């Protein structure tokens, strides 16, 4: 139950922050393995998702240390193809025009994400996709609240610029 609830969100976070879907699956598996082994130490002073996100970020850091030259670089090599996910949009958007527009918007945000730094990507996904509170992001990433806010602003500026909305 724990796995099925959080796995998809964790996989998305790691995939779209590293850009490597294969690595992301390994990271998520390791994350759940570590969570299972450390389940006794979970005292409930934060939400389960925050706890899992923290473990996932630690696993990502471990992998980053092991293969630093290739870790973030691989983001552009095994780019995630959201084409298959358009069927999901199809079921939620009423008309073909809005479906096409939504798919185009999704692709443009994905492209914009690639222009962000790894930390900006993580914070951006946590805030705007997973709708985590700023304090929660700060606790999960270990960044000061002011740093989290700065990353969010810079990330949004870059995304807005890529989407053609910056004035």
């Amino acid at each position, binding site marked *: 139950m724990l796995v099925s609830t959080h*796995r*998809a*969100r964790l*996989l*998305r976070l790691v*995939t*779209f922050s590293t850009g490597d*879907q294969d690595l992301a*699956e390994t990271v998520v598996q390791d994350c759940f393995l570590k969570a299972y082994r450390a389940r006794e130490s979970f005292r409930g002073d934060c939400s389960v998702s925050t706890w899992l996100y923290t473990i996932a970020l630690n696993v990502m850091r471990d992998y980053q240390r092991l293969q630093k030259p290739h870790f973030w670089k691989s983001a552009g090599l095994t780019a*995630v193809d*959201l084409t*298959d*996910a*358009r*069927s*999901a*949009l199809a079921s*939620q958007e009423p008309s073909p025009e809005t479906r096409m*527009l*939504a*798919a185009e*918007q*999704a692709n*443009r*945000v*994905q492209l914009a994400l690639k222009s962000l730094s790894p930390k900006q990507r993580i914070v951006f996904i946590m*805030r*705007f*996709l997973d709708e985590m509170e*700023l304090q929660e992001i700060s606790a999960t990433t270990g960044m000061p609240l002011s740093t989290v*806010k700065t990353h*969010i*602003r810079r*990330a*949004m*500026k870059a*995304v*807005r610029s890529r*989407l053609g*909305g*910056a*004035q």
Partner: protein
Amino acid sequence: MTPHLTDEQVADSLSGESVKTTETHLAECAACRGEIDRLRASLRAFDQASMAWSEARIGSEPGSKPDRGFSRMQSSWRPLAAGTLAATAIAFALLFTVHHRRLSADGNVRASNISDSTAEIERDNLLLRAIDEELDSLDLSPSKMYGISSSGDDPYARRRSGLRSTP
């Protein structure tokens, strides 16, 4: 009219961190409202598409596709598996043939078995007939079966005693 919202103000607004001046400007400026709405729509589209992608990715993993291992076996282990199946079939055929010949040679054993089976069937038939007669003698109306009858008669008790007394 104040100048349009800055990137920071837009980010804060999308994060739910906007201050009063931003809210006031949004209430007056249709362009900035449209910009915020457009960004929200893009983020929602990417949220849905990326989540659908993540769920589909999890759904396509080996653990959720039971036929994947079989397919892999078919391609690489197929000759060996076919040979094993053929050898097993031949071994069973040989064993069956030897066993059949041994039974045919021992006529007494076969006759004895048949005799025992006939006696057993006769005993079973006697018992079945006795049960049938006992059931026919009972008044198994639904009201009495479920104890609705006011007579206090217990058909199950009668049935149990009848079965015990049947020779």
